[in-house]
């Protein structure tokens, strides 16, 4: 192009090795794959279990079952009412929210990177040859659907509001007055981190201000964008931490609901 001579016949250096990297590049994808697998297995089991999701005494509802809309939901747990009759738990009780929460995480820019690297190995690590013959990236169905991430974001904002409502309920003790237990605190931390994760979303960064060409003309949106950008810098960490807190919250409520342990109460 800028070369004077004919360059079309040149070829790449033929190096057979898949990579010449000597550092343990395979470690990160292996850890990611393991952790994600554990999490998905755990969540699947509990979502389809149909029990131990609600602690009526302290109004603890696990996020995996919010909003509980099935006719089978325990009384008091259905904050938005029941939308249909009794069904077996093969239909998850939080039917309206789970697909969105799942979709949100599946199309999340960070998780995409994580599972493309860990499971699809495209690429497993930088400068390590990937195993596929062809590659079309996110240009075709189904992966082109990743572009819908922002709609999941909108939905998850609503779900986060609901989680927050669930949290307010957890501040009620057995008699309906104010109460505080370890479960409440766990839920509080979880909800706060969920908000942080949700607001640190790249789509959120785009919508709040990133799409503008002139920040100076929109000082408020610029300020919001700056704050979201700060959170966004921690998006990966938040993605992992919230996986952890979700699982922990659910596990704690499950244990309390099943009677395996009893909630540690600080007040009422």
């Amino acid at each position: 192009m800028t070369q004077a001579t004919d360059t079309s016949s040149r070829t790449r250096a033929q190096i057979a090795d898949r990579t010449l990297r000597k550092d343990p590049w395979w470690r990160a994808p292996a850890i990611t794959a393991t952790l994600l697998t554990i999490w998905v297995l755990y969540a699947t089991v509990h979502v389809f279990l149909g029990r131990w999701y609600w602690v009526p005494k302290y109004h603890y509802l696990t996020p995996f079952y919010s909003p509980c809309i099935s006719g089978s939901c325990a009384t008091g747990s259905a904050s938005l009412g029941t939308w249909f009759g009794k069904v077996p738990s093969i239909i998850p009780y939080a039917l309206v929210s789970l697909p969105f929460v799942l979709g949100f995480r599946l199309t999340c820019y960070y998780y995409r990177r994580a599972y493309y690297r860990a499971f699809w190995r495209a690429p497993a690590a930088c400068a390590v040859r990937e195993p596929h013959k062809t590659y079309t990236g996110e240009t075709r169905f189904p992966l082109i659907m990743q572009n819908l991430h922002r709609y999941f974001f909108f939905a998850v904002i609503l779900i986060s509001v609901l989680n927050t409502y669930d949290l307010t309920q957890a501040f009620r003790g057995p008699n309906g007055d104010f109460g505080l237990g370890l479960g409440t605190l766990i839920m509080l931390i979880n909800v706060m981190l969920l908000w942080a994760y949700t607001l640190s979303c790249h789509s959120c960064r785009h919508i709040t201000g990133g799409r503008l060409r002139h920040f100076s003309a929109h000082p408020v949106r610029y300020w919001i964008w700056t704050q979201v950008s700060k959170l966004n810098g921690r998006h990966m960490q938040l993605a992992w931490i919230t996986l952890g807190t979700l699982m922990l919250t659910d596990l704690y409520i499950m244990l309390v609901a099943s009677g395996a342990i009893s909630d540690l109460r600080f007040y009422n």
Partner: protein
Amino acid sequence: MTDIERHSYDVVVIGAGGSGLRAAIEARLRGKKTAIISKSLFGKAHTVMAEGGAAAAMGNANSRDNSQVHFRDTMRGGKFLNNWRMAELHANEAPDRVWELEAWGAVFDRTKDGKISQRNFGGHEYPRLAHVGDRTGLEMIRTLQQKVVALQQEDAVSHGDPEAMIKVFAETTITRLVKDGDRIAGAFGYVRDSGSFILFEAPAVVLATGGIGKTYKVTSNSWEYTGDGHALALLAGAKLLNMEFVQLHPTGMVWPPSVKGLLVTESVRGDGGVLRNSEGKRFMFNYVPDVFRAQYAETEEEADGWYADPENNRRPPELLPRDEVARSINSEVKAGRGSEHDGVFLDIASRLPAEEILRRLPSMCVQFKELADVDITKEPMEVGPTCHYVMGGVEVDPDTAAAAVPGLFAAGEVSGGMHGSNRLGGNSLSDLLVFGRRAGIGAADYLDGLTARPAIAQADLEAAAAEASAPLERPGGENPYTVHAELQDIMTNLVGLIRVETEMKQALAELEKLRERVLTVGAAGGRGYNPGWHLALDLRNMLIVAECVALAALERQESRGGHARDDFPQMSPEWRKVNLICTLDGDRVHLSRQPMKPMRPDLLARFDRDELKKYLTPDELPAPVTPEEKH
């Protein structure tokens, strides 16, 4: 006879730095079919390394700034040896050239009211350097590169071929200019990657090849700076002007050895950094020369006050012109007050908060962190003088950039005159734009006045090809790397910062011996991308340039700007009237004196008579004026 690939162009620009690209853009805008030739890849020319900024009196930071003040500063910086017409054109046109860059997509740092921000630099009275952090050169070269691409895109639409009117020949080295009679007829060279020969037939050639730093050992310059343009011009019969003036930048890195010479931008001082010796003293206060006494602070309080309130305080002496600072550092080190590695300390850490340093000097932070394990937000840097810039160069007509040979033009660092005996920081980037453009116009006008295209004689080509092939035919010849290292030692040790007659005579004698050896260097290996061969060919140029520098330095018996003589420490108004001219006589460098043209009275009138007295002989001084007349 080896095959020679032939191309025909209207204008051939040798060099893809700031000046070359600006010249090529202008020639193309004026409808000339233009080739750009560069030793390195497109976008990597030396200009990319410039850090601090481009000086242009736009008056954005201080509305009192204007081109007259800029002109004055430039003349003072160059100790009045500048070609005053060039200094005038430069000061007048620099703002337009910078604004033009912005319209082509450059994204400079901004002031509060959205204009181009300007920063302080040594020798500039007001904040004047348009900049982008500390990577201004990168911004400039990328913008010009992208402008070339934009023009190619236009040509793709109108001619169906993006390279129809302007084409870049990257990694191609010119080794000879070819002539038809006394006129330029083209340029001959080789393509680095294949080693094959290439000829550009063109009536107009613009030299924009940059400097000569690689003739020195400790330098901020890259391998490209082997003085090719200087040598090509001489070989073609043009003249070099005042080659004794080589700028040593006061602040180069000194440790570790592998980065010795690497530049520490002057912006560090412009943004508040100060120089201290091993005793922790700001020694620059002891070195303010008489000619500058009036403009520089005498106490630390006053100096520190200047950054916030330049109206009521005088400038810190750290911001004296570069030659002064470099010599002062040298004196401190000689007096035993240097740092561990024979430098002094440049301290910004104690002057600005860490975040501010990171924001204003990001690449300096990285450079020190990654190459020297020094965190400049916490500790001082160790610095010392490094060869940086050559003020001397091809003598050109100020308005058209035409050299003595018809059809030959020169712009940028390779040209001489503009900066006198010492260049102010930031004046080079603007010089590239102003005179790059003028060279483009000069070449286009020259073509318009031409009736017939020059022809090239086959014999000239064969001679050029034979000369270029020679090292390859001596695979067992002397190692070019060794010869190069010796040449650098000679120049650094004997024609360096402080010069004396005996040493320079010794240098000339040793260069003479080297001349024989340059003819015997050989390159093992083939033609394709063979750096040994490339260096062997560059040696011819470096040797010629080194001889010019040494001869001129020996001749000029005074100290001025980038030329400091231990045996003649004073500046002499008589010598100010003299330009030293290098020409080539066969293969011998020839030196002659040429009187300086007296400055136009209206330009002289821009200075105080008292100030002029320091530089001019009594009979050059304008008649004293009575106070009423002055306004």
